[in-house]
């Protein structure tokens, strides 16, 4: 199957910016195993591209509410997904498609440590 056909399949799998379960299963039934694998991967990729995952050490409704307006402005047209990651010390991580941006205390400490190591030499 050609790449552009795959893209068309992905396009028709969504209705009103939501994955349409019925369409997806119909497509899945029609595809060969090999193409199905590609389809699943393409769906995953598409999902990754249209969502921004915000990881936080703890999540509260209050916090989400406070930042909602700002995030919508930075990432227009993207779904925003919140994820809890207790390993993140006093920080936040944004993941969108294949790019990860992380700001955390741990990160800062690591950078300072690296910097100190450099000046030591």
């Amino acid at each position, binding site marked *: 199957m050609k*790449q552009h056909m795959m893209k068309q399949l992905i396009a028709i799998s969504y209705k009103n910016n939501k994955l349409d379960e019925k369409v997806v299963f119909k497509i899945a039934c029609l595809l060969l195993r090999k193409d199905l694998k590609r389809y699943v*991967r393409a769906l995953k*990729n598409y999902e990754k591209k249209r969502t921004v995952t915000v990881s936080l050490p703890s999540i509260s409704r209050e916090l989400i509410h406070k930042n909602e307006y700002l995030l919508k402005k930075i990432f227009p047209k993207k779904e925003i997904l919140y994820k809890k990651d207790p390993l993140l010390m006093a920080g936040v991580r944004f993941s969108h*498609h*294949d*790019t*990860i*941006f*992380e*700001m*955390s205390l741990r*990160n*800062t400490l690591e*950078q*300072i440590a690296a*910097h100190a190591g450099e000046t030591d030499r």
Partner: protein
Amino acid sequence: MITTEDIIAKLEKRIHSFNDSGKKLNVGTVMKNTDGVITADGLSDVAMGEIVTFENGNSGVVLNLDEDTVSIILLGSQENLKEGNRVETTGKLLSINVSNEYLGRTINPLGNPLDGKPDIKGEKDMPLERIAPGVVEREPVNTPVKTGIKAIDAMIPIGRGQRELIIGDRGLGKTAIAIDTIINQRIQEKGHKRVICIYVAIGQKRSTVAQIVNKLKEEKALPYTIIVVADASDPASFQYLAPYAGCAIAEYFMEKGEDVLIVYDDLTKHAWAYRQLSLVLRRPAGREAYPGDVFYLHSRLLERAVKLNKEGHGSITALPIIETQAGDISAYIPTNVISITDGQIFLEADLFNSGIRPAINVGNSVSRVGGSAQTGGMKSVAGKMRLELAQYQELAAFAQFGSELDKETLTRLERGKRTIEIFKQAQYRPVAESLQIAIIWTVSNGHLDDIPLEEIQRFEEEFSQYLQTRHKKLLEDLGSGTKLTEPINQTMEKAVKDFKQLFHG
């Protein structure tokens, strides 16, 4: 004046800037692994040639960028690498951490030791791929790399910064020439600037490489030599990277002002490894199934051989080796490499089998830098001898038909035969330049005309010993690098005459 407050303020500012600068990562996922070539998706920010790291701690180099996938060649074992594993970019290009401690070591293309000795501490990161110096940074070739092989030093001289191809079928002594040249660099003549040697073994049998390393050790050539090995059992990616790693090491030493000699043994196998990688990467195949950019593969490597013109800067001399099939130099890879080198040493099976070893076909071999890479002394004797040899080869062809030959022709034929005889040379027996000049002087001045052909080699050997014990001063003059003067010629004449009496008596 800087106050404590200033310093603290500066530090605080620094901490703020740390807070601002979060960590940005670009990641991808492993889709499949075909023979050590990984296909991954994501990684939209990755650059060609960039290093990436895998979840299992392995690393790889990006070799292909496609619309939504990236091809990566693995630099470690494939163990524990699974579909779905995470890959991260590093922002670094592939490099090797070089230092002086590399001398005497046998390593793989990543700089890891293969000789069972401890790890090597690096000093400077040298990129494997680098743009070759431009025209303005280059200086014309003017100093020889003395190979110690009479036929080469006299007729096909190699200059520092030159690229001289050694080409011929299998088993004709290509490796032997390269190794002899490395061994000869142990010489410590007056005014001789040392040459650091790098031997890159690509796709050879492990046992062959071990023999070579042993020989170099035996001949005390290891202290100034580095051996880079990607043998036949290593993945194609290692064989592909080996020459670039060798070149990166050479550049490290060149930048320190050293003269470096690098042998690529051999580029035919290098091209095979690249073809294998390209087929796995599904690049379109062209002539002889090589990918279209196989020419660029070797040209960008050999262009890095250079003599820098900046004060105190060194040079890289490259001796690429190409193995032909049945002497066919018109095949794809041989023609490519011939066109990007400054000359070639052409070895021939007929010569090898008839006992002329090294089996160099002098007529077909050239060095485009010619006499400018010869010392004055060698130039004084080589020109005349070359001319005579060329005449002999023409005459010899005619003489097969004619029966009656005049006396002069006969003399020329006999002299030609003797000249060829003195260019025979055993393996691992490099000859100092002064002795080379002495024997060439002797033959081209007719002093060997009355010595039977079978005794020429014995004559040469004993004459060399005679000169070394009785005529140290003469040898010094011959090897001084200056043109032969009349007094030197006279001393030479006397020495030969004296020795001949001993030889006959």
